[in-house]
């Protein structure tokens, strides 16, 4: 009989192994979670964090090893089983159903019923109440897909929390949240901790790890590196554990102080689209990085989509080197030398069943046209080049990209556009879900690209990061471009001040 003394771990994994063709994703990993603790799980992209979670909850069948809940061996066959054991999980990438309403997503599987019939009114009321705890006041009867990734992420978290009686597992829950939402989430996590739940928390944001976790476990290449008490470890040592080497230089905010001069390469005047983004003016020089900051749903993604012609603009005009540019669909944008790395890589980005090589070659090939196929050898060379440059963790270029870890998929997306050698590249949350090592890598890359004369528009929720590489920063609020910071004005504080609208302060 499991006795619940303090030394008895709540959830324990012993010698978990998981082998994928060509990859040993987990190699005898031990992991233990105490009741009432927040336990961080860390590691590079592809280290095996998500795989461990999926093995714990039965979403993958593990090849070896035991799982014990309160000392008793359990063998969940799937999420449903795991839920029955009181384990609630938010998997990496939002895993909710876009075609169901928000309330249905929240209550799926445990809807309130009367006489066997679902009570819609109660379901909606419950949903509103739950979301209110996260500061979300939205129409819960609308379909999930009418909300942004961030809102969806909050809903996914809310759902997992309501389902977790004993254990809550969060796989990169904060990747698409801004600091405001993160704070809210942490409040919830703390109160759950208080109630004695064990919480597994995966994130690439070290600050968040240090803020919320009690202990942490590091994985590398599917192997356990070690478990430490968070308070007893410092940043450098942690990065060392994750990478197995020193990180030459972590991103530090230093700011670009020389503004680009001369005629802008691209200028958009009065550009906008009714119902999604108010008309705005924007100009970008060669070799310039323009950052975009803003809260969730403020209209950053809309800005990018209107620029790239994904959503047609209905006012304003665009000029490239002085000549008017027609931007009514993405193909026109591409032929004008644009590139766009979308935020929602699952639905807008990767072609899951195609190989890494094909995914990287896709945009270039589409630009050349179907008739002149890029020879296999060239494609391979291209792919291998970027696999090396961006350190994409894959056994080879012929692996279907859907089988890569989240962060590595993101890198493939980046590579797809880099091979087209665009003159203007739009990156929507390029570092989302990317580990510290690669994070530094990508920021170095952005700097390198702009040094080569590429113009970049980078949307990011990480203000530090924006400070690091932007020449100018545009702040978006309520679907409007409200401020532009340049040179020495670009500081986190200034941005926060511009983002926080007066009305918004009143609400919260």
């Amino acid at each position, binding site marked *: 009989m499991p006795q619940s003394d303090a030394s008895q771990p709540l959830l324990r994994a012993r010698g978990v192994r998981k082998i994928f063709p060509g990859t040993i994703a987990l190699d005898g990993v031990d992991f233990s979670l105490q009741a009432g603790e927040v336990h961080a799980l860390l590691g590079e992209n592809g280290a095996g964090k998500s795989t461990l979670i999926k093995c714990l909850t039965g979403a993958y069948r593990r090849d070896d090893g035991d799982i014990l809940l309160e000392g008793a061996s359990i063998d969940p066959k799937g999420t449903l089983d795991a839920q029955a054991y009181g384990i609630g999980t938010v998997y990496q990438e939002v895993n909710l159903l876009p075609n169901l309403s928000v309330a249905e997503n929240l209550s799926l599987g445990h809807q309130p019923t009367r006489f066997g019939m679902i009570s819609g009114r109660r379901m909606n009321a419950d949903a509103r109440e739950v979301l209110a705890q996260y500061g979300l006041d939205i129409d819960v009867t609308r379909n999930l897909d009418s909300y942004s990734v961030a809102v969806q992420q909050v809903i996914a978290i809310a759902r997992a929390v309501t389902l977790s009686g004993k254990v809550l597992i969060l796989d990169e829950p904060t990747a698409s949240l801004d600091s405001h939402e993160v704070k809210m989430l942490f409040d919830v996590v703390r109160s759950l901790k208080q109630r004695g739940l064990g919480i597994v928390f995966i994130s690439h944001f070290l600050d968040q790890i240090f803020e919320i976790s009690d202990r942490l476990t590091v994985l590398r290449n599917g192997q356990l590196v070690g478990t430490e008490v968070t308070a007893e470890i410092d940043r450098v040592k942690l990065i060392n554990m994750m990478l197995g080497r020193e990180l030459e230089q972590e991103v530090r905010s230093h700011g670009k102080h020389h503004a680009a001069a001369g005629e802008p390469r691209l200028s958009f005047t009065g550009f906008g689209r009714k119902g999604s983004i108010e008309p705005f003016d924007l100009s970008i020089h060669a070799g310039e990085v323009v950052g975009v900051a803003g809260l969730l749903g403020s209209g950053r993604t809309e800005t990018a989509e209107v620029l790239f012609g994904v959503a047609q603009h209905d006012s304003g005009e665009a000029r490239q080197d002085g000549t008017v540019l027609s931007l009514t669909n993405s193909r026109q944008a591409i032929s004008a030398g644009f590139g766009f790395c979308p935020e929602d890589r699952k639905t807008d980005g990767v072609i899951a069943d195609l190989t890494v090589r094909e995914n990287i070659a*896709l945009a270039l090939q589409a630009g050349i046209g179907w008739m002149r196929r890029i020879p296999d050898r060239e494609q391979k060379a291209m792919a291998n080049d970027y696999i090396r440059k961006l350190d994409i963790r894959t056994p080879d270029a012929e692996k279907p990209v859907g089988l890569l870890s989240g962060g590595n998929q993101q890198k493939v997306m980046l590579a797809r556009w880099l091979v087209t050698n665009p003159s203007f590249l739009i990156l929507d949350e390029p570092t989302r879900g990317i580990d510290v090592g690669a994070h530094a890598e990508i920021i170095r890359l952005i700097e390198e690209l702009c040094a080569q004369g590429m113009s970049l528009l980078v949307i990011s929720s990480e203000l530090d990061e924006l400070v690091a590489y932007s020449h100018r920063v545009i702040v978006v609020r309520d679907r409007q471009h409200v401020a532009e910071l340049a040179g020495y004005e670009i500081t986190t504080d200034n941005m926060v001040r511009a983002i926080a609208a007066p009305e918004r302060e009143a609400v919260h």
Partner: protein
Amino acid sequence: MTGLKLFSRRILPQLVTLAVVVGLISIMFPGFFEISIANGRLYGSPIDILNRGAPVALLAIGMTLVIATGGIDLSVGAVMAICGAMAAWGITEGYGLGLTLLMALAAGLACGLWNGLLVAVLGIQPIVATLILMVAGRGIAQLITEGAILTFNHEGLIFFGSGSLFTIPTPIIIAIVTGALVTLIVRRSALGMLIEAIGINLRASTLAGVNTRVLLIAVYMASGLCAALAGVIAAADIRGADANNAGLWLELDAILAVVIGGTSLLGGRFSLIASLIGALIIQAVNTGILLSGFPPEFNLIIKAGIILIILVLQSPTIRTMVIFLSPAPVSQADTEKQAVNQ
């Protein structure tokens, strides 16, 4: 791994299935493999399978491309009827062979264009978009033949149905040449990859700059063209255009061929060769049933049974089990599949 090895692994299940089906028939009917030459033309049951299978094989070529984009084309049977009727009408009206063929093929292309426009421009779901032509198409064909079987005696046109080149029946040649040509075009150019990309993730492909609209229209037109070829063959074979029955329910056979060929109905990776083998398997089953001498009431049951067995043997679950049980090294485990998109 080399491309050739990968390729043979890809079509191995289909080849084995074909071999088993043919093996079963030859046990039941020992004279099966006897091939002779009659009237300057190869003659024998295996030739029948190839010859009778040619229309479905042609349909399967176009259908493979359509299905790879995540679509489906229910209209091919009706398009066969339209183009057959067109050919018969043209030849009886005295337009000459060349012009007649041109008109028939153009009709097929036009049908494909219509389907493509509905799917790619109006955004109507493929199964419904092509259902419209499936219903109306037979009417159009009858409009051309005025409901009767339009019989013709033009030797040039008949050649496409029952003629032969170097003793090989023309339909077989047409199917093989079309198959080879399309494979070449699709795999030597980037078309294949782009079609697959569309089938896997239309939105992402559009965002990557793929001209999804034009490509979608093109695959439906290709399907229309293949159906036109099949329609001309079918009409030439019986020296008449039977608007009501030409190609009736063949769309189901074509889809079945594609699925037996291992292409997912959800779109994505495709193999034309495997689809062609799939078409042969279906025709082998049909011919086998005819040779067996069972009363016709049992035709459907036998066919259903065989299809089920084939599909069960090819199903991912069973394959995983086989791989699991066999001592050979794990190659393409299917845990992979389920994890895509997570």
